[in-house]
């Protein structure tokens, strides 16, 4: 069998003393598109953040491209879209500057050569933001901002794309653009792991869905059928559990 790109076995992690992952098994094979689903607090974000090394695993094994994650250094192969960036950005920055930082892993000593600059433009074209190159990111809407963060991950032309709720706070038109961008990545052979709240326009792309509940995998297979109110025709995707959902998504770059 082909070596999995991500192999997590019995992953255990806790946040603030509370166990969040309680023995999660997750394998993602090359070229697969896997959606990680589950309610708020089910541990899906923590699972993704432990895979990229942001949350330490207290138990279990994790391999990326066949290398134990602890010794994995080849981060240029991974593109990451965080749910929101850490509070930073007291200084204005343009779309180009932010997306260029996604190309760093591919450059030598941070030198941007012509190929690197072209890759940045290509990534922005993929998400339909190439005309906003010189605009400051704090002038963008939530959906545009999310597209920039995705372009940043795509700028490094990663083999593995990991996205934490890329569709949160993004309107339908932007979701379609992102679905198209993702389709192009899959077509060129990229592997994708994404945390989602709802499948939405991405549904046809998803090969497999893994559902977490209370830090355990409760479903691993084809995308599950919608249940309850979600299954009703004309379901409006207004999520009461999103809490103060009216608030725009905070990615940190906007502040």
């Amino acid at each position, binding site marked *: 069998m082909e070596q999995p790109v991500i192999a997590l076995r019995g992953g255990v992690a806790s946040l603030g003393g509370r166990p969040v992952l309680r023995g999660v098994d997750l394998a993602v094979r090359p070229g697969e598109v896997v959606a990680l689903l589950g309610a708020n607090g089910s541990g899906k974000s923590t699972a993704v953040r432990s895979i990229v*090394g942001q949350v330490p695993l207290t138990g279990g094994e994790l391999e990326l491209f066949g290398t134990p994650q602890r010794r994995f250094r080849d981060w240029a192969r991974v593109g990451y879209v965080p749910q929101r960036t*850490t509070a930073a950005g007291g200084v*204005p920055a343009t779309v180009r500057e932010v997306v260029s*930082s996604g190309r760093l*892993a591919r450059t030598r000593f941070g030198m941007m050569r012509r190929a690197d600059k072209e890759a940045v433009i290509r990534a922005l074209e993929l998400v339909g933001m190439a005309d906003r190159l010189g*605009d400051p990111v704090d002038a963008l809407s939530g959906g545009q901002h999310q597209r920039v963060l995705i372009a940043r991950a795509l700028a490094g032309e990663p083999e593995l794309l990991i996205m934490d709720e890329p569709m949160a706070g993004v*309107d339908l*038109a932007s979701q379609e653009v992102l679905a198209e961008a993702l389709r192009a990545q899959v077509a060129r052979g990229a592997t994708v792991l994404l945390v989602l709240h709802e499948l939405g326009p991405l549904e046809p792309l998803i090969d497999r869905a893994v559902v977490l509940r209370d830090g355990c995998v409760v479903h691993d297979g084809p995308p599950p059928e919608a249940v309850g109110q979600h299954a009703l025709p004309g379901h409006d995707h207004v999520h009461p559990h999103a809490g103060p959902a009216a608030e725009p998504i905070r990615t940190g770059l906007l502040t």
Partner: protein
Amino acid sequence: MDILDLAFMQRALLAALLVGVTAPAIGTYLVQRRQALMGDGLGHVALTGVGLGFLLNESPVWMATAVCIAGAVVMELIRWYGRTRGDIALAMLFYGGMAGGVMLMNLSDSGSSANLSSYLFGSIATVSEEDLVAICILAAFVILTTVGLRRQLFAICQDEEFARVTGLPVRMLNLLVAVTAAVTVTVAMRVVGLLLVSALMVIPVAASQQIARSFKATFALAVGIGVTVTVSGTATSYYADVPSGATIVLFAIGLFVVLTALATPLAKRRAGRTAAAEECTLEAPGERTAADDVRV
């Protein structure tokens, strides 16, 4: 111009120029990651180094550099490990540094209160040949770091989590930012004084932000503003016989006010240009398109 014929003023102007470049350069990164007042804390810590220099009859600039770098490293360690009680620990470090400096100065034979205040508020006309050599070496380090590693530093200051997943040595780079800030403090110490160091790291950046739209432009303009106020402030302090540090900082604040006043009409013009391109029209009912994304 007679001011350029005087050896001490030549030294003073060169030192001022270097401070004008280095303080806003590292300051841009500090402001970006919302640590604008880090320089202030490091300035407090550096005073212990100055006191040690007097006590041991060593160069106060080099001793301050050593102590300040040690303080910066401790600050970074506190940031990594002591999240919950971090601010208490930082307060201990800062005020301990200040108190230690005053105490050590008093214990030494050569340290007087006049000396103390020249380090606290700057005394540019007393910059010695030896000081200037130290300032040049330290400034070269700061410029090399802030310009040479600008992409890496931008990445970690903009989004630390993302930078880590890019494979950047985030801890090393964070440490480098802190150490560079510490070095800048000692570069600026003789010119604006330890209590006003932070002003030169923050105010030019804040002023520059009023009109700049990109990080690169903010950085460049902040350095330009920094050089303008330090050099003109130093010259003014010579002619008007006023303290250099205070003059420079007041000039910087003045420039900030002017740029803020200029920024409002500028922003309006930019907004006006966009608005003119697309007029708003009210549509007849039922003309919503899918792109409106109104889901009812």
